[in-house]
């Protein structure tokens, strides 16, 4: 399908280093629409919505913030920890809003498995259904995150 000029511009921004040195698309050659469609289908197959996933991610980040950089127990099988750096990062979509450069690490304490997500990831998933492209450092794999969150 032909892309609108706005979509073309957005995709160009997501592939560039304008907002993040490594961009948001990683090595993924699919279009933005294809990436979002595939992830939405996967999320639906798993029985959740992006908003449910983002809401749970936010709850974990909020709880982890209180531990000031230490691990905190989320439930019997999971712990989380926050890593923060200075500054804020804006959403690459054309609207106001920027997000703390904060990364939440969620660990399954029984298997040692970990996933990382940023405050911007939470926003991108909740508002734009965007989990980032494959190969992006902050790509959130729907299957992995669902297994860890619920």
């Amino acid at each position, binding site marked *: 399908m032909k892309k609108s000029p706005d979509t073309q511009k957005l995709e160009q921004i997501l592939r560039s280093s304008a907002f993040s040195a490594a961009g948001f698309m990683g090595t993924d050659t699919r279009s933005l629409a294809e990436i979002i469609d595939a992830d939405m289908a996967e999320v639906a197959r798993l029985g959740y919505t992006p908003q449910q996933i983002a809401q749970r991610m936010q709850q974990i980040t909020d709880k982890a913030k209180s*531990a*000031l950089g230490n691990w905190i127990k989320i439930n019997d099988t999971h712990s989380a920890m926050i890593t*923060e750096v*200075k*500054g804020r990062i804006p959403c690459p979509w054309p609207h106001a809003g920027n997000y703390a450069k904060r990364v939440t690490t969620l660990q399954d304490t029984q298997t040692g498995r970990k996933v990382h997500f940023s405050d911007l990831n939470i926003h991108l998933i909740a508002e734009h259904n965007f989990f980032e492209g494959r190969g992006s450092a902050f790509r959130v794999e729907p299957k992995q995150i669902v297994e860890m969150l619920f």
Partner: protein
Amino acid sequence: MIVLTLLKAVLVISAIAAGLAAVLAVADVFLRDYGPCKITINNEKELTIKGGDSLLSVLTAEKIFIPSACGGRGTCGLCKLKVLEGAGSLLPTEEPYLDKKEIADNVRLSCQVKVRNDLKIQILEELFAIREYKARCAEIKDLTHDIKLFRFELTDPAEIKYTPGKYVQLLTPVYEKSSEEVYRAYSVASDPAQKNIIDLIIRLVPGGICTTYCFEYLKVGDEVKMNGPYGEFRLTDTDAEMVWIAGGSGMAPFVSILHEMKNSNSQRKTTYYFGANRVEELFLTEQMKQFEKDLPNFKFVPIVAQPGESENWNGETGLVTQAVERNIKNASDCEGYLCGSPGMIDAAIVVLKKLGLNENKIYYDKFA
């Protein structure tokens, strides 16, 4: 016949499209050419440069280094300077980082201001002392599972002079995970008396461009570039008792300050609260014990949030802020010095104020 006509039509349309594309390309080159622009700095120095780039990148190219921790993406708010003439309107990307007074004083984010015409700017004189340094990575030491100490020997220039508490910006070159050079800021952890050495204590940030480079790609012997020194975090000249609070790589500036206190035989009463998650995540504890021997009024208080049962930890437990609250009854005559994650610093400020410390006597460096 019809096929020939169609073919001709396709060719004509293609030729028109190609012509329009060429016109657009040429127009782009000329429209983006702002010609030579003059930048007057502090009414003294004048630069003539080719317009079109951001003010930050133009000044950096002229070896005038303005602090910036985000590589000019408008996300750290550090690259502030006054643009007295020629900057145009304030951009929405700048507004979150500027208060009303700064806006009234023509303060701008230099990474967001494009040089399109002549500009008059004002910058702090001390920024002229900031230089670019080439250095060789001399040592990489594991401090914890996700914190390393990187020692760099300066090669060109071979010496640096700085006040303890300052930071440098380390350049990450283009590598597999980044298609462009980026700078990131790290507090200096070395003894300022060793003028050819810069120690940096760096914590791995998941997905971080610079920390990933340092942890996975940088090798002993590699050449790096950095610029500095920057920052306003330093000890005051008073004799007031000090409460230091840090966690993780926030240890860095305090190591440098302790070297300086030892070098100057400081007698200032100082208690340093340092938080870690597990006992195995405490580091430089032997060096801290040595500083306690060298400095008669210095005390190091390590706090472990969650000591494991097998770790035999008999010291302070819980959050670093909880340990401060347990140990200090009244901090009204103290000065507070904090370094760590923004969340830890915000929490520490709340606790110190609760203990009676005036907010204007709390100094901090919010670099994780």
